């Protein structure tokens, strides 16, 4: 039996690099500080030009791809005209050639974030995350409630107001919906909120505890932990919470499922072998295979949008540390104190909770930025993609 398992682990190791080499065509680019592009915010005309310039500067700096410099020494100059709901953006290079010209609409912050993401994608080929939303649990009211905010830490808004327990938020990939675990009924149920309208529905309310819901990359399915069959196990359901399909059959505790970018696989935490370890399973069914991380306590895995890495929480002694597993090599490294990591759309930055703050980490440079604080103990941050 042991031999069989060893073989399976060996076989899955073999399979991973092969699968990745077929799936991911993008070469790995390592960028050091000196590789950053010199960019300048030029003239932003129009009624709210000054405000637009400030938000844009912050977005471009946050991306990690640029050094903001005076226009005279910049390789690229960002300009535009902003009036009301419209922002006409123009990016020119040193020779004066236009490299991007596009009009964005929406309120001032969202049109600027969209412009920033377009600049990042045009100049670097990487997906930007300036337009992403975050959500997290805050406790400053004396109860755990769900909050949402923009990824730059602005527009913080308390979403639930139930004076109950509202925890475990997960944003849909497009940021339009959010699922979370709520105790309004006295039981742990999965609720879904349409962020545009505020409409809320209780979508999973089986007997026992329903928790850990997480959208698949296309938003059509949920992975979720249900205990209705006598033990907390991993299931998938439709986005609306119907047609629960059981994936695991263990005597232990499964928790915190996260999907691969293709939606074909799920990584989750399970204490079936004693302490919580990470496991990988086909979303269509099969056996969960343990991922050896070298750590004893591994929870809250979060798969990067490019499929290459998994961030998770380890407990060493009494404190929590954020760790990153490289799926190609199997290497694990820790990035510092914190818990509940979630990758941003660029697969380079991640957010996590540390005490009373949501922190944004550039996993490439190690640079940390505090996004939100002052809402009591903050936990379980999530990021749209």
């Amino acid at each position, binding site marked *: 039996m042991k031999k069989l398992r060893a073989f*399976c682990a060996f076989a899955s190791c073999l399979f991973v690099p092969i699968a990745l080499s077929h799936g991911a065509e993008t070469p790995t680019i390592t960028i050091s500080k000196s590789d950053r592009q010199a960019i300048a915010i030029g003239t932003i005309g129009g009624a709210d030009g000054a405000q637009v310039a400030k938000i844009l500067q912050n977005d471009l700096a946050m991306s990690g791809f640029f050094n903001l410099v005076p226009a005279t020494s910049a390789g690229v100059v960002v300009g535009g005209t902003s009036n009301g709901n419209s922002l006409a953006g123009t990016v020119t290079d040193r020779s004066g050639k236009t490299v991007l010209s596009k009009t964005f609409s929406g309120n001032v912050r969202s049109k600027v974030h969209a412009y920033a993401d377009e600049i990042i994608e045009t100049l670097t080929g990487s997906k930007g995350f300036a337009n992403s939303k975050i959500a997290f649990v805050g406790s400053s009211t004396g109860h755990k409630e769900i909050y949402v905010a923009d990824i730059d830490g602005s527009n913080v808004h308390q979403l639930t107001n139930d004076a109950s327990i509202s925890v475990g938020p997960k944003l849909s990939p497009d940021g339009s919906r959010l699922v979370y675990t709520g105790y309004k009924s006295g039981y*742990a149920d999965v609720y879904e909120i349409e962020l545009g309208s505020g409409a809320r529905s209780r979508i999973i309310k089986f*007997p026992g*505890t329903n928790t850990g819901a997480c959208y698949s990359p296309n938003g059509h399915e949920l992975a979720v932990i249900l205990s209705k069959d006598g*033990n907390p196990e991993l299931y998938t359901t439709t986005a609306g919470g119907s047609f629960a399909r059981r994936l695991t*059959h263990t*005597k232990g505790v499964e928790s915190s499922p996260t999907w691969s970018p293709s939606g074909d696989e799920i990584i989750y935490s399970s*204490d079936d072998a004693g302490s919580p370890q990470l496991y990988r399973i086909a979303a269509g069914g099969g056996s969960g295979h343990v991922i050896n991380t070298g750590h004893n306590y591994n929870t809250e895995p979060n798969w990067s949008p490019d499929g290459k890495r998994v961030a998770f*929480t380890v407990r060493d002694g009494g404190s929590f540390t954020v760790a990153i597993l490289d799926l190609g090599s199997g290497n694990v490294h820790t990035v510092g104190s914190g818990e509940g990591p979630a990758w941003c759309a660029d697969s380079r930055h991640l957010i996590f909770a540390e005490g009373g703050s949501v922190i944004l980490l550039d996993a490439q440079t190690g640079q940390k930025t505090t996004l939100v604080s002052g809402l009591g103990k903050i936990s379980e941050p999530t990021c749209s993609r």
Partner: protein
Amino acid sequence: MKIIRFLPLLAIVLAALSLSACVHGKKGAGHNGASDSDYVNGSPLPERQEGVSFTSSNTDRSKFRPVYFAFDSYAIGSGERGKIDEVANFMKGGSNTLIVAGFTDERGTPEYNRGLGERRAQAVREALIQAGADGSRIQTVSFGAEMPADSGSGDSAWAKNRRAEFGVVR
């Protein structure tokens, strides 16, 4: 291909079923590595009763003493068995619905704590069923590390918080 993959699984399920006839209720040996084994001892929960929960006013949460657990464990210690028997006897003598609520100390991550609390509640429910109580009248819920019995930090507070409580629906 599908049948070949399915056959070993079927064999394992059958083996587990025949095993469970003699070891039902006991914890199986730990399965390491890939979970190609199965666990069929859990008893599905009955449908919920609308409007009734562990925290609702029609639930008596002080009738029985909590069952306590070791750190990161859902095993019921021998010293806690007397409490289980007491509740099982009460259940056998009446028709009340019981809600077992599981809790953890603050030292785990939140989602794992919710799972561990549920696992503790389910372990107590299984033990009650083994002791003769009717499982169709026993619900479970987990609050994870929320609603601690002792809001302090330290060994003594944590020991009080790793628990399963009994709510008797009046």
